């Protein structure tokens, strides 16, 4: 049993124009030490998947119907808000895309980190290194030194001074480090990172990815890394799941999927990435557009754009086809490898 198991999750979201079928049976599992990249273009539902694990979507307009999300055996779809709150920050950490807007500008970063640490410490005083009956003052002190240690860990110089600084006194890359520190201060087992490097400069991106890579190794974290950038996936992910219009179309070991992509969408994605060898002016693109999720096509949602499509594709969603011990694809056109 993996740490996180998303099992056939279905999600619809109300909007002005109707109900969009956002997640159409997502199955994914992430275990300790694994870094799963969840890739897809904008609107495919990857961010929503991440938010769903932490149950952060408001229930109208979101409507879950079918499937489960199991964390350490417990079905989060059945959990109440109090249970979820205990998990957030303490066992599930999250970081988001834009470090500029994700830190409260009028509070010192130490203050925000201390509150997260205190919250995690409330369920599990061992995090703060204290006995269960410790006074609130002792807990605050312990939380503060923990915050300083975490800042140091993520590479913020002069952490003991910087802990009292405000977010605007940090650069973009430093702020993302702070957010990582804040997400990990409660010693969670699972980290969900939603486009953590998209808003950063390329050179800073590399540093942040290296940081995440090191932390995964040191803490045996399970990571769900949501991104549209295949380069990022190639750099630090151990596994990858490719998403299209609310469905997962291919999953597996990252090297296996990238070396021998089986799904036509995966192939197109990989081909669209310009490399040193690409012919100038010849950018590959995929004809057609992402389907309307309010009136989605029946069967395989990629069928309207797929050059391998057959009438069978619009009848039903493709069942998974195993291509290797760590490689599955969801496509009618692919036959089982012996």
């Amino acid at each position, binding site marked *: 049993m993996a740490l996180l198991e998303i099992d056939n999750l279905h999600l619809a979201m109300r909007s002005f124009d109707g109900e969009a079928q956002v997640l159409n049976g997502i199955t994914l599992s992430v275990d300790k030490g694994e870094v799963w990249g969840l890739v897809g273009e904008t609107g495919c539902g990857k961010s929503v998947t991440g938010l769903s694990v932490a149950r*952060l979507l408001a229930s109208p307009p979101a409507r879950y119907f079918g499937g489960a999300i199991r964390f350490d055996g417990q079905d989060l779809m059945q959990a109440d808000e109090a249970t979820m*709150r205990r*998990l957030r920050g303490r066992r599930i950490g999250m970081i*988001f895309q834009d470090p500029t807007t994700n830190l*409260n500008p009028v*509070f010192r970063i130490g203050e925000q980190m201390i509150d997260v640490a205190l919250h995690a410490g409330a369920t599990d005083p061992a995090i703060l290194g204290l006995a269960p009956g410790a006074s609130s003052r002792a807990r605050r002190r312990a939380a503060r030194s923990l915050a300083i240690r975490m800042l140091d860990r993520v590479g913020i110089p002069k952490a003991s001074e910087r802990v009292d600084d405000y977010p605007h006194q940090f650069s973009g890359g430093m702020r993302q480090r702070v957010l990582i520190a804040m*997400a990990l201060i409660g010693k969670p087992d699972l980290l969900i990172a939603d486009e953590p490097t998209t808003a950063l400069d390329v050179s800073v991106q590399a540093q942040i990815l290296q940081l995440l890579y090191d932390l995964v190794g040191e803490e045996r974290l399970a990571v769900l890394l949501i991104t549209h950038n295949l380069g990022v996936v190639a750099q630090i992910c151990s596994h990858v799941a490719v998403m299209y219009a609310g469905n997962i179309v291919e999953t597996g070991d990252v090297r296996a999927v990238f070396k021998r992509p089986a799904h036509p969408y995966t192939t197109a994605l990989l081909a669209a990435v310009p490399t040193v060898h690409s012919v100038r002016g010849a950018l590959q693109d995929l004809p057609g557009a992402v389907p309307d999720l309010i009136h989605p096509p029946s069967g395989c949602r990629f069928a309207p754009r797929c050059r391998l499509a057959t009438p069978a594709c619009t009848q039903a969603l493709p069942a998974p086809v195993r291509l290797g011990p760590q490689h599955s694809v969801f496509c009618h056109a692919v036959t089982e490898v012996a």
Partner: protein
Amino acid sequence: MIVPVLLGLSLLVFAISHLLPGDPVALAAGPQATKTEIAALAHELGTDQPLAVQYWSYLTGLLSGDWGQSVLTRRPVLADLRIYLPATLELVVAAMALAIAIGIPAGLLSAVFVDRWPDYLSRILSLGAISMPRFFLGLLLQLAFAMQLGWLPLNGRYPIIEDPPPFVTGFLSLDAILAGDAGAVWLALAHLALPAIAMSLSPLATITRMMRSATIEVLQQDYVLTERALGLSRRLIIFKYVAKNAMSSSLTVIGLYVGWLLGGSVLVETVFDWPGIGLYATKAIVTQDFMPVMGVTLAIGVVFVLVNLVIDLLYGVLNPKVRLG
């Protein structure tokens, strides 16, 4: 910044008082006075000199502590202000304290429960509160709590039969505290209650509305999602984090209201026979006694500028990006 504003204000006040129709000297001289007598009085008061000269002597007088004499009370205006200004200030401070203490949490909660019944209720009550004339509200409060129920005194700052605590600040409740007289504190507060409530309703409603819209905006910010995602409790997020983010919007309104309440204090002071600058200025206006009116206007201007300085400082406290250096 303060100096040019006050200078301009003094000039404006002077100009307006001289542009208004009516001849205060003739009034002061009395209906029986002859032309010569009026002219003599004008010469004595210095009103026959060119306007620029009059303004100059007025200005130098202001700066040296001579704010003129009140024809009605026959006292220097500054001496009158020393008594009446603290009375009004105490009322305004009490009213704003009530408005802030109730308005800020009300606005926060209204936004948290947006579009549900607590929000609708608070929005209707706010509009109603802003529309309620405070002199009418004062009368209603008197009718209910003083006349019918007898819980609170009808008017005045202090019972006539009692000796008030010794004058230190002019704020009766403070002076009573300083004198260590618990009974006096109670009496002062009891008299302060109804007029302060009458005055507080309008700013309370506006502060609630401002906090509400600011909080709605803040709740949509990314950092609130991060705070939720890391497990912080709703109560902590709203009352510690969001509150601080949303509060600066109310600061401007608070500053403006202090000015408005000071200027419009006569409405509540009339109803409750509260001896403040509102009544003082109005009586002076009705008797065409200009020095007190100018004095009151300038005093309000000074207080308003000082309050805005404090508010600017508070902006810095609430938002570190605004602080100097």
